């Protein structure tokens, strides 16, 4: 039974009945990372240092040393990333059971609001409206906030102003609803973090990080191509690197969608 199901899936991928969508930005030295006040430690940028390139340093091979943070580029946040999740069992990327890395995904479309308001908030009402149209968010599913923010380039992405960055994100009540009432698996965004640019001014500060990770839920950020996903019915594949004690990881995020 399961054997034929898997065969059906691979055939569906070959024939185009199912399709994979890449939700990942390219790891690129010029891709923005989160900026904190300069006296705090900063997120390492992605760097690639050539070790050899078929030359005197290694005649037949080319390879690079990489430097980056666990939270550089399109990345996964484990519960241990936040102080609220530091005592969550199996809260680091190496300890999370692998079955958490493939699962259903719901996409809440906030792109119209985010197009006109840089500080657009995902509220419980927007979630209820989504559910009215597409059904209740299934338990243990990923919820992604589509804003089309990934289409922004350069300084418009962080949108840093004198009073901090301005980008959309969820309100504390919206995160509580998703975590406490819908018991989701994780929450993902197209922005540099799961929280709004001005998320430090909520109570609690950075509510997505605080509430999600405190409840053992995961985060995904710097996603793209969410406009190619259906509101419900897709499958998200997001497997972080198995880093000992890691609080997150850059990763390739894909979604399996109807062709």
């Amino acid at each position: 039974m399961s054997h034929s199901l898997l065969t059906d899936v691979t055939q569906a991928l070959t024939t185009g009945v199912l399709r994979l969508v890449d939700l990942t930005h390219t790891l690129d030295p010029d891709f923005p990372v989160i900026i904190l006040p300069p006296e705090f430690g900063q997120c390492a940028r992605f760097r690639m240092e050539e070790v050899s390139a078929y030359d005197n340093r290694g005649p037949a091979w080319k390879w690079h040393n990489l430097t980056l943070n666990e939270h550089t580029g399109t990345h996964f946040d484990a519960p241990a990333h936040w102080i609220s999740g530091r005592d969550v069992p199996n809260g680091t990327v190496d300890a999370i059971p692998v079955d958490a890395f493939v699962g259903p995904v719901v996409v809440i479309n906030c792109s119209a609001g985010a197009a006109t308001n840089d500080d657009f908030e995902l509220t419980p009402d927007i979630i209820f409206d989504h559910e009215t149209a597409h059904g209740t968010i299934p338990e243990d599913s990923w919820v992604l906030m589509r804003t089309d923010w990934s289409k922004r380039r350069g300084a418009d992405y962080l949108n840093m102003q004198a009073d901090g960055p301005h980008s959309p994100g969820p309100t504390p009540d919206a995160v509580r609803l998703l975590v406490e009432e819908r018991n989701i698996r994780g929450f993902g965004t197209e922005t540099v973090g799961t929280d709004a640019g001005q998320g430090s001014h909520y109570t609690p500060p950075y509510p997505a990080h605080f509430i999600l990770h405190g409840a053992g839920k995961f985060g995904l950020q710097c996603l793209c191509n969410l406009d190619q996903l259906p509101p419900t019915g897709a499958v998200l594949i997001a497997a972080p690197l198995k880093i000992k004690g890691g609080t997150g990881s850059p990763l390739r995020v894909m979604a399996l969608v109807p062709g």
Partner: protein
Amino acid sequence: MSSRAHMPKKDPQKRTNTPTQPPPQRSRAALGLTAAAAEGRFMLQVCPECRAVQYPPRDACVDCLDTALQWQDITPTGQLLADTTVRTSTNLYFRERGDWRVGTVELDAGPKIVCHLAQDCSAPERVTLLARLDRSGQGVLVAQPENSKTRLADDPQLKALTSDPRHARVLVTDLRNANTPALVEHLLAAGAETVFVGESEAWRKDPQRDALAAIPGVEIMPLDVTDTNSVRQLAAEIGGKIEILINNGRFLRPARLPSGGDTVFAAQEMDVNYLGLLRLAQGFGPALASRTADGQRQALAWVNILSIFALNPVPGFDTFAASQAAARSLSLSMRATYQSSGLRVMNVYVGATEDVWHQPVHPPKQSPRALARDLVAGLQDGLEDVVSGDTARDLMERFREHPGVFEREVTFGEWGV
């Protein structure tokens, strides 16, 4: 293209001249004159026994054979006794440059000296001697009429003793440094044709950017000294089109050794201050060193702005000082490497500067404008070592006087944040 005055363009069908050098090191004793000239100081040896001023530099007093000769600053005035013009030479460097004026000067301090002559000098007349570096990096002496207002850079024979930024294209590597606007302003005021300014992380706009971009003659280029590929790319693009490179990149986080449990900031200090310089040297060094005889647009100088803490750490800046010491060491290696090309490596040492990371440090602190002024003056004088500001000068002198005392005095406490 800016509307600023440009140098005549080079004929792309003509081969670029291979640099030739004036004669190399004369003697070990002569290095004292060179080290003084590197700072623009006119120093000669003086006999502690009979007070005789010596020239040329030697190992024993010309009068009493005392061997404890001491280098001292000497009043640089004298009388030009005779002048002549050398019409030809077997030395390639002088041969390429045609007629060369030399003369004999009797210094008020005593010795008679054969030296280079400025164009407007003719015997007999009162002259002032300047100690400068030639393109072999050796100290040489030049006579100018006393109170002359003519700049060496305007003298076709002696221009090579300077790194004058007039008509030069300059790269200032870090747009984000607080000193960048002042550097740009002083370079353009000194006649630089174009100032390229390196901008890292354009996705994180710097508040200084718009004002800099609006200045005629300024071109903002992508450059991140922590990214080898970024350095390589800009070097490929404009490495052959700059005559002066000013490395003003700096990462600084005040830190005392026992604090913190990680190396994150220390690594960033090394990455920007030391490895950044190494990446720049690997990227831009070969292009600059190969163009020191490139017609009228000769590559002139490489400038590193270093903290005076490079000599000796200061409490509160422990890891930063280590990165500066590493950068200084590399800079000295660069100087030795490029000496044979004639590309001058100038270190500008500065103490605490007026910026956010020195905010808790008591004044005096060097302002960006004062730093820029000293840096440009150093280029105009063709120096290798510039010490900018009273604090840095005081520290440098105390360091030279007695490194062991200095270490205990400075590193053990006096300074702290």
